[in-house]
């Protein structure tokens, strides 16, 4: 089936919904395609808040937020992006409030704010309350509110449509191909501009806070065109996932005063980050926890977890401001934060890297300023690069709305100025071929088995602590998995709601993301932010203060070509010199 809209948005999480609203404000026709139902997107799982220098509790300034973002990113953050972000986010938080978002409130009725890891006043002096929150379900409220506004504006949704291909002709994107789950039909969406906002790929790891559906689909599709993925080696492990399950436990628990303790009940973060302790940025806390576990001070049956202690906080704070995680700990671990220590362990959480874009969301085709006309990206799947080598807590929700808004605005502006581009003769050909291969293969491989092997080895070899030997092994192992993937057969022959077929496709996407990630990681011979190498322990600004651009070698399958892009070390009005990162 053939459809035509000025702007197509892929994904209906925070970035997709915000960009759809702003594209519609630009006076063009908009449709939003999602592989899920609206409000099922993983933005809803974000808990702790959205950081903005409102100064509702104590003095705060956008410059301080910008500094924390740059330092948190271990100076790989593009400072022009950080400046735009730290200013814009203040306005966008007010805008969300004007959309009706039910924020928690201060006693005088302002938006409530709390402390979060790495957010400080006066350029690192002490922790500051910057995270604007709605209890501990801020992402849920943002997702619901943005969906509500799209209902109000009459945005057209194609639900449970899986995008399988991007149509790019002569450097211009002219649409997407999507698979309709309910019928098994392929659809061509002809568009003047396309906005990609389809989320991350946490399912490349075994223990993750990410939904089953976060499989890096659009990153992989972009990469398969020979286009670059930026900074894929930087992947964030959130310090506090529920033990064994990886379900997110918000950093807000530490913002409200929660304390991490080892098997001796020692507050060990005092040793690793003397000034801000448990409120150090996530890469540092996750590594400190893992070090404690490695040195035998872990807790639980396998001694592979750490306690989070909230028991000194009043019951009202725990059950009120932290209602969500209280329910999760009680439901899944049978541990009650009011009186028990809760067992947590680091969980794969967030991709700092992704599809490279400029400040307006325009997708970049190389490290030298080349771009794909008409193609925009925002959110976790994009890399602008706001988060550098390590994202600060709350900056993910901020990224979605700030850069989702910009992508929507600029995509609409572009669409107003141009005619529809030409489509290929048979736009669905490649997608059809891939589906037919999976359906008719007489191979013996099960996609779920390959995915499991990938997740377990990525955890082990490209996890929190890395070294050249393990990563080089993983690069080769991914080649083996890809060879096995070529023999995947889908057993279910049905056309309607064939989710086995989709999961097989998603496994292929994950393999690409893993390939780009492992190859980028083994190539970077330094430690920076979330990328921590046991064989190259220090940050090396002389050789590595640059972004990685990983390209699939289209002529040599399995090979990854690594290029680079300079870091924007200057903001528009403020800049921060790289310095050693201590807290």
């Amino acid at each position, binding site marked *: 089936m053939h459809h035509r809209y000025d702007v197509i948005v892929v994904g209906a999480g925070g970035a997709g919904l915000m960009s759809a609203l702003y594209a519609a404000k630009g006076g063009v026709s908009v449709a939003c395609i999602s592989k899920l139902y609206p409000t099922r997107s993983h933005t809803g799982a974000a808990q702790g808040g959205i950081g903005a220098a409102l100064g509702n509790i104590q003095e705060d300034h956008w410059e301080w937020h910008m500094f924390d973002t740059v330092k948190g990113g271990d100076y790989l953050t593009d400072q022009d992006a950080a400046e735009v972000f730290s200013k814009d986010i203040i306005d966008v938080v007010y805008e969300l409030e004007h959309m*009706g978002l039910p924020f928690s*409130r201060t006693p005088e009725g302002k938006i409530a704010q709390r402390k979060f890891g790495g957010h400080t006043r006066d350029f690192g002096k002490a922790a500051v309350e910057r995270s604007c929150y709605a209890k501990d379900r801020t992402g849920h409220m943002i997702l619901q509110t943005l969906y509500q506004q799209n*209902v109000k504006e009459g945005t057209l949704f194609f639900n449970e449509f899986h995008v399988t291909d991007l149509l790019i002709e002569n450097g211009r994107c002219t649409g997407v191909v999507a698979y309709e789950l309910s019928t098994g039909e392929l659809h061509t969406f002809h568009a003047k501009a396309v906005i990609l906002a389809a989320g991350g790929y946490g399912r490349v790891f075994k223990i993750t806070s990410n939904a089953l559906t976060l499989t890096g689909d659009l990153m992989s599709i972009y990469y398969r065109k020979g286009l670059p993925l930026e900074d894929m080696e930087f992947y964030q492990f959130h310090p506090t996932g529920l033990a064994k399950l990886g379900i997110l436990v918000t950093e807000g628990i530490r913002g409200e005063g929660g304390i991490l303790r080892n098997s001796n*009940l020692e507050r060990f973060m005092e040793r690793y980050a003397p000034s801000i302790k448990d409120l150090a940025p996530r890469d540092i806390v996750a590594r400190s926890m893992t070090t404690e576990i490695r040195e035998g001070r872990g807790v639980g049956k396998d001694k592979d977890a750490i306690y989070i202690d909230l028991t000194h906080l009043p019951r009202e704070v725990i059950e009120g401001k932290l209602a969500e995680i209280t329910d999760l700990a009680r439901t899944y671990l049978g541990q009650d934060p009011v009186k028990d220590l809760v067992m947590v362990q680091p969980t794969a959480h967030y991709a700092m890297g992704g599809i490279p874009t400029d400040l307006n969301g325009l997708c970049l085709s190389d490290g030298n300023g080349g771009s794909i006309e008409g193609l925009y990206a925002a959110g976790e799947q994009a890399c602008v690069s706001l988060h550098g080598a390590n994202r600060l807590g709350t900056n993910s929700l901020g990224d979605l709305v700030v850069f989702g808004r910009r992508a929507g605005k600029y995509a609409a502006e572009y669409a107003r100025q141009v005619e529809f581009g030409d489509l290929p003769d048979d736009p669905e050909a490649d997608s059809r071929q891939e589906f037919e291969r999976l359906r008719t293969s007489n191979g013996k491989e099960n996609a779920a088995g390959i995915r499991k092997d990938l997740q377990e080895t990525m955890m082990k070899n490209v996890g929190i602590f890395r070294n050249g030997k393990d990563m080089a092994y993983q690069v080769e192992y991914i080649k083996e998995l890809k060879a096995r993937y070529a023999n995947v057969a889908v057993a279910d022959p049905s056309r*309607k709601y064939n989710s086995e077929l989709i999961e097989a496709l998603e496994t292929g996407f994950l393999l690409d993301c893993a390939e780009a990630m492992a190859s980028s990681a083994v190539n970077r011979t330094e430690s920076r932010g979330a990328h921590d190498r046991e064989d190259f322990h220090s940050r090396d600004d002389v050789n590595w203060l640059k972004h990685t651009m990983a390209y699939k070698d289209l002529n040599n399958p399995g090979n990854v070509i690594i290029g680079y892009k300079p870091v924007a070390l200057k903001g528009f009005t403020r800049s921060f010199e790289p310095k050693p990162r201590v807290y």
Partner: protein
Amino acid sequence: MTQTPVTDSAVNPQVAAAPVAVDVPMMRLHVKILRFNPETDKKAHWVTYDMEAQPGDRMVDVLNEIKWYKETGLAFRRSCQHGICGSDAMLINGRNRLACKTLVRDVAKDGGTVTVEPIRGLKVEKDLLVDMEPFFDAYRAIMPYFIHPTPFPAKEQYQSEANAEKMAHSSNCILCACCTTSCPIFWVNGSYIGPAALVQAHRFIFDTRDEAKQQRLGVVNQNTGVWRCRTAYNCTEACPRGIPITQLIEEVKREVMFGQS
């Protein structure tokens, strides 16, 4: 336990470390699923899968295990797996629940049987997967969005903590449909907008910042609206988010009677 050097004065001496879990034996269970494939079946039929699971596994883990390694054609929705996305509402042992918030030990004994069926009152598309469109139609009917024609201040609108708290329950809804599809009135009359839509109506009616209260009360006062509720409390019992839905519906009823101008 060896907890000698307690270095931080903030440690609460009353607190014992959480019990260390010991190895738990796997449970055997028969998972009896009501299956329907529109391409091959005239009507739904039960199929039983013999599975092993840990007592603390989620039912969604068991369903995934079936789908990935036993019966790859099994269709059901799932995404976040921890009760926030609202995808996996289903009838487990005759009760509406989210498969990801239901632990095996709470619905089966070792060697026992668990039944799994699609939620009721919406058309079954395939296996456990139903047509959600009528549910979202009802949602859209109550104008589920903030309405505020008056220009906004430069910063945020102020709202008291108490007024914000009035939305604490209603804004917690994840649109999973557990409530609406457990409602006997909805089963017999699909034009009733149902508890989930009324929870959403409550969220805006009791938002002190919203300016369309009278319009909203008019919508829920229609014959497809709030007066269909016969306070069966099924919805409240079914809600995986612990929302006191029947109470919220009663508050909406009172607002229609006494708050309409």
